[in-house]
């Protein structure tokens, strides 16, 4: 899922500026699960903004609402009237949620309340780690299901660099070396021979390097037309 974390309150206050009627919009999907932008976080942020505006001597009207999925336009219709009433929207969705709001409500001013961090999963209570870089050309079949694009600091394709030590990456003892993980996994599966093959330079066109990406499914478009 998409992992995000809330921006510092001061930064959000700066983004809110002089707006008086503020609506905080949470999202019920990824950012709820990673405790960054769900119902609870939206309510807490709204209360914090109210309280701090009161302390600053210019009390704002701050409400909050959470939609099931901010990244799909159909879920946004239900909050249309609240959005219209507000001078400013603080989106607690990921970067996709913020932009879905902007596209759906072009007359409104929407600012982000989160920093969208990465695609990952929780590894223990309160800890999330990156797993996928959305490169658009999955190579997990070559690496025992451990992604060197997302998890190796240098996105190497032919094994560990000289900076791998005691299982961690040269950049920090906190970062596991992806190639050590891959090595251990392939070793335990008796598939180390895979590592001996030379991997050619990756085609990065399917990644961000090919420009903004888009998928068109003609089968689905035709089906929609027929309906």
């Amino acid at each position, binding site marked *: 899922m998409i992992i995000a974390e809330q921006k510092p309150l001061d930064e959000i206050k700066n983004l809110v500026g002089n707006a008086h009627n503020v609506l905080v919009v949470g999202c019920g999907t990824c950012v709820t699960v990673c405790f960054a932008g769900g119902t609870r976080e939206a309510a807490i942020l709204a209360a914090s903004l109210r309280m701090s505006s009161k302390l600053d001597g210019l009390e704002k009207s701050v409400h909050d609402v959470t939609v099931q999925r901010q990244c799909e336009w159909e879920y946004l219709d239900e909050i249309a009237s609240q959005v219209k009433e507000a001078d400013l929207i603080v989106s607690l969705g990921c970067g996709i949620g913020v932009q879905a709001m902007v596209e759906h409500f072009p007359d409104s001013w929407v600012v982000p309340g989160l920093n969208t961090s990465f695609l990952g999963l929780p590894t223990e209570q309160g800890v999330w780690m990156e797993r996928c870089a959305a490169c658009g050309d999955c190579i997990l079949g070559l690496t025992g299901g451990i992604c060197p694009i997302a998890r190796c600091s240098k996105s190497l394709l032919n094994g560990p*660099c000289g900076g791998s030590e005691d299982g961690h990456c040269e950049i920090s003892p906190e970062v596991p070396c992806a190639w050590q993980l891959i090595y251990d996994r392939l070793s335990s599966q008796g598939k180390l021979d895979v590592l001996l093959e030379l991997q050619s*330079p990756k085609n990065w066109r399917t990644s961000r390097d090919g420009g903004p990406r888009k998928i068109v499914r003609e089968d689905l478009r035709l089906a929609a037309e027929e309906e």
Partner: protein
Amino acid sequence: MNENLMHNGYLSGSKLERVLRAGHFAVTGELGPPQSADGDEIRKKAKILKGVCEAVNITDNQTAIVRMSSIGAGTIVVQEGLEPVIQMTCRDRNRLAIQSDLLGAYALGMRNLLCLTGDHQTFGNHPDSKNVFDVDSIQLIRMVSDMRDEHIFQCGDVFKGQEPRFFVGAAAAPFADPLEFRPYRLQKKVLAGADFIQTQLIYDLEAFKIFMEKVRRLGLHEKTYILAGVGPLKSPGMANYMKNNVPGILIPDEMIERMTKAGAPWAGKSKDELTKEDKKARSEAWRTEGIQICIELVQQLQEIEGVAGVHIMAIEWEEAVRPIVEGAGLYPRPEVKEVASD
């Protein structure tokens, strides 16, 4: 060995290649460019290193700190009559930039190239920068060998005219993790086209012998020239730091003890009790011992089957290379005939 030779019998015709092909025990050094645009710095270091080694590695923004470019500094080194080994990392350039810079490097007279992954930028003075890593070191080796041997760019386009003919090198870290994979990682580099290898600093000879035994079992010493990396220790503090902080460097305790003993006359005194002269004398004693240890290492490395030379990394201490080479009985350097380029 790669047999895509020119009519003159060489891949690149570099002095380093000629010395190795003639069967001599090769010596390479290292020249770190300055964090400035001062070409005299390079000239000064080149004068110290000229004549005591076949070629000198010119680092490429080593430890991710901005310095004069390897090719820029290498051009000055060529002008000084010393042969550079251009280092090229995958951190700062994509495949377009690497290939075009190497076309330029060849045109400027450079003939040796060392292909490296590159230290991560978080180590250096621009930790906020974006990295590249479009290709990795093994893909880089293949890319430059293909430019030389197949006349093609990485994209597959055949090009006309002069191809860049580099003697292509790669690094090996015998003691980095996962340890068991290291000989195979070297095998991949050889398979990709590495004509020579320079290893990470070796202090633990016994561990290196075990590595070389695996390398020989894979027959790699017959397909590439392996230069063992050595470097004189400056102080026991430096030895301890490297042992504890630099991945893939093993330093035996006896060696650190030897360094400590060299400073014994000044031991037990606090910083304030030592005069400036004391500190200078202690540093001299440490350095003398560091050079002596290095000489012994070079001598012992010559005895290991499959070691074709040494790469002496005396960073910011270029003066140390001559006494090491002389002390190890490797001076004067062999004379090898110049060859016409094809």
